[in-house]
């Protein structure tokens, strides 16, 4: 190896051939280019002609230089040039051992590690050394030496494992290996070295490659005060870094996506950083994992969540069975409705309530417990359960908690309770007092319309004020709470129905229940809970932090899950029966440990500049120059025809000018011509397929949605109907020919200029000859009264068009039954009237109201429901824009698509469906 600056040569001896270049120079100069031989009878006349230049020809200097360059490039190329050559290995005998950590801490810079190993392999390949390549995270590594080139394919398929490397195990197995010349350890810089360096040193020189940035990790997530809390873990001495934590879960449609993203700036030296994430309860319930976003993504920086973070399970128990038939007065109706979106509800009988392992138990007007039920609930509350009780006639009538404190009630109660504002009482219904600071409901909005008619009363014990969460204007407690062990008991002094108060009807009730659901702690899931069961992996994490389905991975004993993950137990979601367990790489929120290498170990970072083989570059350069030489020689010898010469000149000019200049030049040339050229492929495309078109507005987002919308509609059409449109096209209303498109979708934007006179003429022709334009003002959600803001824009744009009188699409219009039967025409928004050409007075044909539209299609449909947004799909066929919420939203989208199908059917088939109303009459006549 010999190197000059950044370029080195594998076989420098070949460079000696460069000395021959001057000889070549001399030779080439001496021999002129061979003349062309040509038989020519007129030669007799040529004799005696005076030669203008009769000196012996010499090759022109530039051709000489070109040829010298060809030869020089070829010589340099064959000498094996390398950019940024790596220094030769110190010892070139014995196999080279490459040890990769290959654990999850290697994942963030895995490709850099692969690149490093690839370079080492290349060097070993050139030196002809055998190589061992071992990943420490591999349970059964291949310890046999192989040729370096053989490892390249293996290296490409290697992936980081989802667990930490087992260095001690490999150090112990090192003796199994044969002779080792030298070893290189590509380390991740974390964890215990486990005497690996010592073991390697015993076999030969060791070099440790350490990454610049060691990996980060994420501690398991938990809930604290209603917030999702996790910790970012780093090794000591970490620099300032900026990371973001992504909360990933399923959205309403069941598609996994990033629910929230929280940025965090880590100060230098911070080892454990707390990150708290506020999430709405609905989102919180769907969180499936937390991860550090790239470039820190890895299995260690990913935390799976299990049931502990999932929806709270709430058991609802009603005291009586009497009112079940009347749903609105059923004791649990309001609780059920309020809690449905945020929690998982179970309604077991009181005796079995704890078997459902609820997080919260809500008892509506339950007064009497059996001894077993009482003790069970008491234990459960002390263990951290949250018991919410609602008062009611039964509780008021029973004598519970009046004389002695009931363990399942926060306060002692007075007998009977009171009624306010009834026919037989003096007082008015009472309103609520503002919530005391620092209590559970602090910060909730106090509605004006909540009043209380009846309630159970608390005994005025000394600690009553401390236990009051909500009080009435006159100070009587409405909601009281008491902590019991690690759990809590909450009592609503009114019913869970509107019978005693209007609280269950108010929004406040929802918010209060939401707060309660948030503070509920999850049941204990200690290590003790793991043991004794075989846990089957459901989904596993790979080293990169990606979740994959766990196929063909055997179940693991619970005791194994208490230890760190390994090849036999990859991190992931495990399940035993109904119980789920998130088995994460990081067990707790302790800082990472930096790799402690013995003193004197040779370490280095990654090779900064990658070696690059330039042979191909040089040789192709030589080839290229050779081609040029051929052309130049031909030109010199007069063998190039003038046309070919001009062509070559043009080609060279193109090279020089670059494509962009040419394009600019093309634009400058006559617009009409380019238009014709541009139109040709468009016309062919538009006429060879059915194509939906939209008007380009100039607003990139609107155009994107228009395109995506028509793509989505085309997809639906192709799936459901005989129409199979090709990709939609954008139409420039000012310049493009419209005749090819059955319909145009024209979203109205305020940025759009009204069409020019030529465009107006063209659009009018289009409309008169059977085209249709769907104007979409996209403003139904902004509409005040009958008109949205887009209508003014629409008038501005379409004012000059030759539009017929319009009417709201009547219910018997053919649009409502061209393919699907439709009642309205929703898009992303719903409700705005949709307008079409006014039809003539309906005639009554055979008893069916029938509209005789002039055989064809209304030239315009005008509406504001933003149809394209409802139709829009991305490249994968997923809908881009949300429509409504939940199931009704899906229904609305479906209806929007059906409208699109009907619309295109209407455009394509005209009033064919309208004619269908005659069919019964025709059949009847045929029968006669």
């Amino acid at each position, binding site marked *: 190896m010999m190197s000059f600056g950044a370029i080195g040569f594998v076989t420098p001896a070949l460079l000696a051939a460069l000395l021959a270049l001057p000889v070549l120079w001399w030779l080439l100069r001496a021999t*002129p*280019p061979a*003349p*062309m*031989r*040509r*038989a*020519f*009878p*007129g*030669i*007799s*006349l*040529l*004799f*005696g*002609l*005076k*030669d*203008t*230049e*009769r*000196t012996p*020809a010499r090759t022109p200097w530039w051709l000489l230089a070109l040829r010298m360059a060809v030869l020089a490039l070829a010589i340099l190329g064959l000498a094996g040039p390398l950019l940024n050559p790596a220094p030769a290995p110190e010892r070139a005998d014995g196999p080279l051992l490459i040890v990769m950590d290959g654990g999850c801490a290697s994942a963030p810079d895995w490709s850099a590690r692969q690149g490093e190993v690839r370079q080492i392999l290349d060097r070993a390949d050139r030196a002809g050394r055998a190589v061992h390549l071992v990943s420490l995270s591999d349970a059964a590594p291949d310890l046999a030496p192989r040729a370096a080139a053989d490892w390249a394919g293996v290296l490409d398929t290697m992936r980081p494992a989802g667990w930490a490397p087992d260095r001690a195990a490999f150090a112990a197995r090192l003796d199994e290996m044969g002779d080792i010349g030298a070893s290189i350890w590509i380390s991740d810089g974390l964890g215990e070295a486990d005497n690996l360096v010592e073991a390697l040193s015993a076999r030969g020189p060791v070099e440790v490659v350490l990454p610049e940035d060691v990996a980060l990790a994420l501690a398991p997530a938990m809930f604290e005060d209603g917030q999702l809390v996790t910790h970012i873990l780093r090794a000591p001495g970490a620099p300032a870094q900026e990371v973001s934590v992504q909360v990933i879960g399923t959205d309403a449609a069941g598609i996994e996506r990033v629910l929230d993203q929280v940025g965090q700036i880590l100060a230098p030296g911070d080892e454990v950083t707390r990150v708290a994430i506020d999430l709405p309860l609905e989102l919180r319930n769907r969180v499936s994992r937390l991860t550090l976003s790239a470039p820190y993504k890895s299995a260690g920086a990913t935390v799976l969540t299990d049931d502990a973070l999932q929806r709270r399970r709430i058991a609802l128990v009603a005291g009586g069975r009497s009112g079940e038939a009347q749903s609105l007065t059923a004791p649990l109706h309001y609780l059920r409705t309020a809690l449905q979106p945020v929690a998982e509800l179970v309604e077991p009988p009181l005796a079995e309530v704890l078997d459902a392992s609820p997080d919260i138990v809500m008892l509506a007007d339950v007064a009497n417990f059996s001894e077993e039920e009482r003790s069970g609930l008491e234990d459960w509350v002390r263990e951290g359960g949250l018991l919410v009780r609602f008062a009611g006639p039964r509780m008021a009538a029973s004598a519970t908690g009046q004389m002695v404190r009931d363990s399942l009630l926060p306060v002692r109660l007075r007998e009977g309770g009171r009624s306010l504002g009834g026919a037989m009482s003096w007082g008015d219904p009472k309103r609520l007092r503002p919530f005391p600071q620092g209590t559970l409901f602090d910060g909730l909005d106090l509605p004006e319309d909540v009043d209380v008619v009846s309630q159970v009363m608390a005994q005025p014990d000394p600690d009553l004020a401390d236990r009051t969460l909500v009080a009435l204007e006159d100070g009587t407690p409405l909601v009281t709470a008491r902590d019991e062990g690690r759990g809590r008991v909450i009592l609503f002094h009114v019913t869970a129905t509107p019978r005693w108060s209007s609280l269950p009807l108010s929004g406040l009730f929802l918010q209060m229940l939401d707060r309660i659901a948030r503070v509920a702690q999850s049941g204990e899931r200690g290590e003790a809970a793991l043991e004794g069961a075989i846990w089957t992996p459901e989904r596993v994490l790979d080293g990169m932090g990606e979740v994959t389905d766990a196929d063909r991975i055997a179940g693991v004993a619970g005791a194994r899950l208490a230890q760190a993950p390994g090849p036999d137990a990859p991190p992931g979601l495990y399940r035993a029966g109904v119980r789920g367990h998130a088995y994460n790489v990081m067990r707790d929120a302790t800082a990472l440990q930096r790799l402690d290498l013995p003193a004197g170990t040779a370490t280095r970072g990654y090779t900064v500049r990658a070696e690059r083989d330039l042979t191909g570059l040089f040789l192709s350069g030589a080839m290229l120059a050779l081609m040029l030489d051929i052309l130049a020689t031909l030109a*010199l*010898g*007069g*063998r190039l025809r003038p046309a070919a010469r001009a062509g070559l000149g043009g080609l060279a000019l193109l090279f020089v000018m670059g494509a962009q200049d040419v394009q600019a030049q093309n634009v400058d040339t006559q617009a009409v011509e380019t238009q014709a050229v541009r139109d040709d492929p468009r016309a062919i495309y538009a006429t060879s397929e059915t194509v939906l078109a939209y008007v380009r507005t100039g607003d990139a987002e609107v155009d994107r949605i228009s395109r995506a919308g028509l793509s989505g509609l085309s997809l639906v059409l192709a799936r459901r109907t005989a129409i199979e449109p090709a990709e939609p096209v954008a139409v420039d209303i000012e310049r493009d020919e419209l005749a090819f498109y059955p319909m145009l979708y024209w979203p109205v934007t305020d940025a759009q200029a009204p069409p020019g006179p030529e465009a107006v003429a063209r659009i009018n022709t289009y409309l008169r000859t059977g085209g249709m334009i769907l104007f979409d003002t996209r403003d139904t959600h902004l509409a005040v009264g009958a008109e949205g803001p887009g209508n003014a824009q629409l008038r501005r744009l379409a004012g000059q068009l030759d539009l017929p009188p319009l009417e709201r699409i009547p219910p018997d219009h053919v649009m409502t039954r061209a393919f699907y039967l439709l009642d309205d025409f929703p898009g992303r928004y719903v409700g705005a009237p949709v307008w079409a050409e006014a039809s003539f007075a309906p005639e009554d044909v055979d008893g069916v109201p029938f509209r005789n539209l002039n055989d064809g299609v209304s030239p315009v449909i005008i509406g504001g429901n933003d149809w394209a947004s409802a139709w829009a799909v991305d490249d994968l066929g997923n809908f881009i824009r949300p429509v409504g919420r939940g199931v009704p939203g899906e229904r609305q989208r479906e209806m929007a698509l059906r409208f699109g199908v009907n619309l295109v059917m209407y455009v394509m088939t005209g009033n064919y469906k309208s004619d269908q109303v005659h069919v019964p009459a025709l059949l009847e006549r045929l029968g006669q």
Partner: protein
Amino acid sequence: MRSGPSDNLQGAARRAAGALPPLLARAERLAATVVLGEHGRRRAGIGEEFWQYRQAIPGDAAGAIDWRRSGRSDTAFVRQTEWSAAQTVTLNVDPALSMDYPEHGESKRTRAAVLACALSLLLVRGGERVGLAAPDLPPGAGRGQVDRIAGLLSGMTPHEDYCVPAMPDGRRGLLVALSDFLAPDPLLMPALDALAAQGQRVVLLQITDESEETFPFDGRTEFRSMSGALSFEAERARALRDGYRAKLAARRDMLRARSRSAGWSFATHRVQEPASRALLWLHRVIEGERR
């Protein structure tokens, strides 16, 4: 099956006949483009064909009077026959190698042979006697003579770069020379002088290729004669163009001047032009010569 001379003869005949029919066919097609109208001398003279009746004038021999015709009227008529003294036309198709140019497409030699055959056909139909000069063929009449001419023309095996027109010894009549007249001056001048000195009547048609007139060459070129015996190297062929064209024009001027002084006819013909034009010119000139 006997082998020997007869086989060779047959083979040679077949080879010769291979080129013959196309040449003849082409020549006939070409000759058909010239409409002869009435043939013959169109004047009274010694011949076999009836020409006209003429009123007898004093001095006519009594034996010359056609009694059958005179019996139908009061005056005596003399029956005259058309003058059909045949003229001898000798065709000189340049046998030089230089006529084998251009190598691609129709060569000057082919064009000359076609013209010669077509002209023979026309002349034979007109009752003339046609012969060849370069492969010596004594003049003869009749269709058979045309076949012989065609056979000789298609069987020519040239050796020399340039040849000059000459009349075979002792032959008189009209010499039609079809050549490119590109022979060097020292060769060409004496031949022309000799013809003029013999007092021969000569028709010269210079057949050239387009490239010989325009000289469309460029670059470093080594020009060679068709046999390769002569060569001329040009550094930049384009630079020679003007000089060459001037010399060609001078050569044509010289030929034209000599023709005028000797009472000959001279024209040029390009291979790229239709052959009928040259044939028409030749026919017209020969008709005129006969008058």
